[in-house]
């Protein structure tokens, strides 16, 4: 379980998070949604110890963020950061292989190689395995980084807006892969999403944030409503139900 207790956070004296508490039990996909600047990515990077925790407590299973070793946490929790400009020329196979680093510390064994090949197949990256990162499209790159996080074989997987710059086909196929991982591998996935419809369609639980606070939390059909869109996002959009799932008409 990821347990977030009374976490507050400021960046350059600007408060970003106000006394946030949240429990994410094992299993399923939890989506963090909310308008820009709500603190979703900050919360995610605090859980992934990529930003220093100052106020409050976060623990992942038995590991306490801020006290546990980076190397130990790397075997429990993987994060795919918001797409950054990576200028490294690594082949896709090498990149995915580096996802195994916490386990082999630079000396990959047969099981590491096996995992890399399995990951490449699962993510449909085999035909691109020998290509360099700067020779593939933005969507393929996102997929490669998601594959790298998957190869890390951690029970918890954090993703920060993985659908940025992806077209509809790539977005849906990535979300389906995540769905598979949650259902088949029992992974616990915490994902920051921009698009409420994707969140409602693929997540088991939505956590809605606004101005550094959690304002709604629950199953998509309970959370997504025209009122929420108006209160949280400040926009008038009708919501209708299709196949028992809420759909925002944009």
């Amino acid at each position, binding site marked *: 379980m990821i347990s977030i207790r009374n976490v507050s956070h400021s960046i350059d004296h600007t408060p970003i998070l106000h006394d946030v508490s949240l429990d994410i039990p094992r299993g399923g996909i939890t989506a963090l949604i909310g308008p820009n600047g709500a603190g979703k990515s900050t919360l995610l990077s605090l859980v992934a110890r*990529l930003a220093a925790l100052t106020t409050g407590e976060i623990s992942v299973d038995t590991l306490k963020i801020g006290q546990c070793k980076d190397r130990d946490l*790397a075997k429990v929790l993987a994060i795919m*950061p918001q797409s950054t400009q990576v200028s490294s*020329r690594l082949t896709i196979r090498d*990149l995915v292989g580096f996802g195994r680093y916490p386990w082999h510390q630079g000396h990959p064994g047969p099981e590491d190689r096996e995992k890399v090949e399995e990951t490449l197949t699962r993510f449909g990256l085999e035909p691109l395995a020998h290509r360099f990162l700067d*020779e593939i499209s933005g969507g393929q790159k996102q997929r490669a980084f998601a594959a790298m996080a998957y190869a890390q074989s951690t029970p918890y997987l954090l993703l920060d807006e993985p659908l940025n710059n992806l077209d509809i086909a790539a977005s849906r196929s990535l979300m389906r892969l995540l769905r598979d991982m949650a259902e088949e591998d029992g992974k616990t996935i915490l994902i920051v999403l921009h698009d409420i419809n994707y969140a409602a369609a693929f997540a088991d639980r939505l956590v809605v944030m606004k101005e550094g606070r959690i304002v709604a939390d629950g199953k998509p059909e309970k959370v997504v409503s025209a009122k929420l869109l108006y209160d949280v996002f400040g926009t008038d959009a009708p919501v209708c139900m299709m196949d028992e799932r809420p759909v925002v008409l944009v």
Partner: protein
Amino acid sequence: MRRLTLLLGLALVAVLALLSLFIGAIPLDPRTLFSDPEAARLILISRLPRTLAAILSGGALAVTGQVMQILARNRFIEPVTAGAGQSAALGILLVTLFLPGAPIWAKMAIASLTTLVGSIGLLALIRPLPPTQPLLVPLVALVYGGIIGAVVTFVAYQGDMTQFIGTWLSGELSGVLRGRYEMLWIAGLAAAATWIIADRITLLGLGASTARSLGVNVARITALGVAAISVVTAMTVVTVGAIPFIGLVIPNLTARLLGDNLRRTLPVSALFGAALVLAADILGRVIRMPFEVPVSATVGVVGAALFLYLLYREPRHAA
């Protein structure tokens, strides 16, 4: 591909090393090597040390150039011209002025220390620069190196030592003799040691967050990388003088050919760097025999041509 380049590099270094042993102002016939004691002496005292100096400095500079480019996250930078080289010269100058009686290891340690400070200063200076403007980094580095170079010139002028700074600021191998180049082995060792942390440096190239989330101790690996850069730069500058371009051109060449997985590319870079310095030094010896052109000048010409070629060549199967 990688095995091929590795073999090519080895063959190049072997052939050029042989040439380097037998080409020079004093003619030397390989057939008399074992009969003529004078010939053997020439090899042992001058030609072999000179050849080893070229291999060690070239290999080490290429390797640390590659590490520097990853730490700075910029491909247009190399330590020797970006302030580290000048800081090494400043260190050895200050030591010569104020502690002339210090033992050689102490002088080297102080030069390494000033180089370390110079390198850290540069990394701190370029950190806030926006990654969207990749050319700002080499520009800032150029100005930074220029300022430290100016300080070196000023101190040398005040201390009446201007004739010395040339030997540090422009690399030359003609003065290399047995007993006067051995510090370069330390440079070679420091460069070789980066191989141990090659994976972790490669991960730093993916960004500090990615590296950290894979359990890499970012601060420690950065510090080790900067230390290796500083030791190599200081040892080369003090022993043979600054050799520019190696740390810029060779890493770009290997990255283009083989990518940025340092575990694979560092040995290739080392071989190519050694080959380039050897070739440039041989060229400097034959270009107007029996006089010599300093290796920093020939490397500059060859390196600039190579770099322009790399810049203008179409990238292979670009997306």
